[in-house]
């Protein structure tokens, strides 16, 4: 057997195993959330209205199609405790929010998921660029967001201490909607000033989370002071967002990173964190994301039939399923689209590349606000 054929055979076997694990995990998760002794009030109440019995009829991941698409409106408003599984009723509960510039934000409860997700993610980071024990800077949104605590946890798991800035993305969106671009620029500068102050304060910060827009602004601001990102001591950057395009990655790599390692991620409060295959110039800086299966799964589905997964390389809408003991979300239609990607040896399940705002919603979506 040639090395290529062997690799392919190994990947097929790994993919089959991953699928079996996903099926088993799905069964276990559904049993947990719909059982009277462990489930949360929301799903136990929903169970009464379902035309099937999840405890009997959901045995595989594919069976989750029996659920109607998850409505994100269910996450808006309280009581928030209806999402807390009985088994966790006595545990300290966090609530994380998304949106909320106007109206009621979406909320997600959490106990340990955010720590688990980022502990797992930590294992994917190369020590060479994210040295254990190094301190971190969280140059991203603060407030009632999972990301803020998650990055701090990531730093701690890796033996470091995390410095943070104040950044209110809801205010940023208001500035954009009002067309107050001068204020927007000033607010961005305010955030960058905080970052530069911390980076220059002798804290030995070598790792950073930030967004494409802020990274760009930081690089420009440092250069105006005769400095560079590399010159501040940063060696590894973990970033994310739908603006993370191949062109932007190339731009950052060629124009200002000077060899500083940067890994893109795709995630949200519901899913956790999808990692990417290594992004290389030889592959045109293509970015392919893989969900942290079996805790969450990504499918790329037909725009007109959300139960139908498109072929490899074809375009569809991103459908997300979250399967943890803390939170169960079957078939949440993301506001993004992309191309379905083949399994990869380190992530032997489907991925998604070319992630961008779903074209039908793109006009109404404000992306890359911070």
């Amino acid at each position: 057997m040639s090395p290529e054929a062997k690799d392919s055979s190994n990947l097929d076997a790994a993919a089959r195993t991953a699928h079996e694990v996903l099926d088993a995990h799905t069964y276990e998760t559904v049993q947990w959330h719909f059982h009277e002794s462990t489930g949360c009030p929301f799903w136990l109440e929903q169970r009464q209205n379902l035309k099937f019995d999840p405890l009997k009829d959901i045995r595989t991941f594919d069976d989750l199609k029996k659920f109607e698409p998850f409505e994100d409106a269910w996450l808006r408003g309280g009581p928030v405790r209806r999402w807390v599984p009985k088994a966790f009723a006595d545990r300290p509960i966090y609530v994380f929010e998304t949106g909320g510039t106007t109206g009621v934000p979406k909320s997600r409860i959490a106990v340990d998921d955010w720590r688990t997700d980022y502990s797992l993610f930590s294992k994917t980071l190369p020590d060479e660029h994210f040295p254990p024990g190094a301190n971190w800077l969280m140059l991203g949104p603060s407030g009632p967001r999972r990301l803020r605590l998650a990055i701090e946890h990531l730093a701690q798991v890796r033996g470091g201490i995390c410095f943070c800035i104040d950044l209110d993305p809801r205010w940023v969106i208001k500035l954009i909607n009002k067309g107050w671009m001068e204020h927007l620029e000033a607010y961005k500068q305010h955030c960058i000033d905080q970052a530069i102050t911390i980076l220059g304060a002798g804290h030995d910060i070598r790792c950073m989370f930030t967004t494409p827009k802020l990274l760009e602004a930081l690089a420009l601001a440092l250069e105006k002071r005769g400095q560079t990102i590399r010159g501040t001591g940063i060696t590894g950057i973990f970033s994310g967002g739908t603006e993370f395009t191949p062109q932007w990655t190339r731009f950052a790599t060629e124009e200002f990173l000077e060899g500083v390692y940067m890994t893109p991620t795709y995630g949200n409060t519901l899913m956790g964190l999808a990692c990417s295959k290594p992004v290389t110039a030889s592959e045109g800086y293509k970015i392919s994301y893989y969900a942290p299966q079996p805790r969450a799964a990504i499918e790329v589905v037909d725009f007109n039939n959300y139960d139908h997964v498109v072929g490899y390389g074809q375009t569809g809408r991103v459908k997300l399923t979250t399967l943890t003991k803390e939170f169960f979300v079957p078939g949440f239609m993301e506001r993004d689209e992309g191309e379905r990607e083949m399994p990869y040896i380190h992530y032997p399940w489907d991925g998604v590349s070319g992630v961008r705002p779903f074209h039908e919603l793109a006009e109404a979506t404000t992306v890359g606000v911070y």
Partner: protein
Amino acid sequence: MLSIPALRWGQPYPSLEIETVVHFATGEAVANVSQANGGLVQRDMRNAQAARDALRAISCADLIERCKSAADAYLNGTLPLGDGQQSPDEFVHAQSATSGLPEHICRANMKKNHAVLSNMERMLDALTRGLDLAILTRGYGKESRGVVVSYQAQSPVLGLVLPSNSPGVHTLWLPAIPLQLGLVMKPGSQEIWTPYRVFAAMVEAGIPAEAFSIYPGGHDVGAAVMAACNRSMIFGGQATIEKHKGDPRIQVHGPGFSKILLGDDAVDRWEDYLELMVESIYSNAGRSCINASSVWASRHTMEIAQALADRLGPIEVKPPTDPTSGLAAFTLPGAAAAIWRTIEAGFREEHVTHVTEPFGPRLVEQQRCGYLRPTIVHCKSPTAALAKSEYMFPFAAVVECPQEKMIDQMGYTLVGTAITGNSEWQQQLTDATHIDRLNIGPIPTNNLDWLQPHEGNLVEFLFRARAYQIRK
């Protein structure tokens, strides 16, 4: 098919993000255009001074001569474009295919650009009031009357956020090069052609390529151009005007609300001016800010509207290659229908009459685009919404208004043609600050004298007069 890279100070930059521009009617791919990102613009602007330095190494007089050569290359030459070449015919075909303008109008716009490039010396002489251009190069100097003057460039480059649907506007920024300012352009997504052709023609004429950057891309690119350049021009609608109003760094070009005013002493002879009115409304497919969007008179207004409708109402949609085609397509799906809905809402107002109605439906929807046929409305009162509306096709309101109230009622006017021999009214019109270009007499609104400033003097926008004293 051509692949067109972005240009970073004259150097091609093929992007990993490609936008395919397509024929407005057939959907056929015309070119693959590299898309820049805002960050690229901001970073490149760190080297903006080098663009001006490269141009300042050549005298203004020499640059003017090179512009003349560039004019001929632009009009007649086969010039490099991306990974290929483009002849003048191919240019016209491509511009029409993506912008929706008839080909003969594209050719006419080429001639306008050619005329400006060829007559740069006279234009700059007029705009600077005869200033020795070496004073602009050096920053100071002595005028012929022996007075020291100083003009300081306010930016090493001029930023341009250009429109997709109106190739006639490019004449406005061409003088920046002989004034030794670099150009940082974000072309319209459907009219990428002129910036690239002007660049190729100028480089062929010996103007340094490093004076030009062209960044096709999205809104972030336009925002970056305006943020990074200390002087920019942007072309857009009323919302764009409102957004940038009062910002001295940005010159906004939007709807012109150009008008023809018939004085009481001339209005009884309105038929003598019918041709002038038709031309002002209909030329360039009604797409320019200098097209008349209203005709104001105190009497005979319904007769005037009727006569305009008789002339313009029957005009049909024709293929863009037809030399008699006078209408341009709205290439954005749904745009024509949306505009028509707004106009129809205006018809419902009291004392507003749609005079072209008997000539058949105005909205013509095709598979991938839409057209609006010429539309004339009669407004018995200046308070009607349509009396002060402007659309990107041959649309005009004939507005009934007493002469003594016109100046107060008519609102902002980019080009006002006042047909009157009444010297007192002429003086009032001359003093009216909401009229930008004033034509006294039977001059079509689209008949511009390029030796005169347009929406502000470009030289005054780019240079600041200041004190400069030397003591030895």
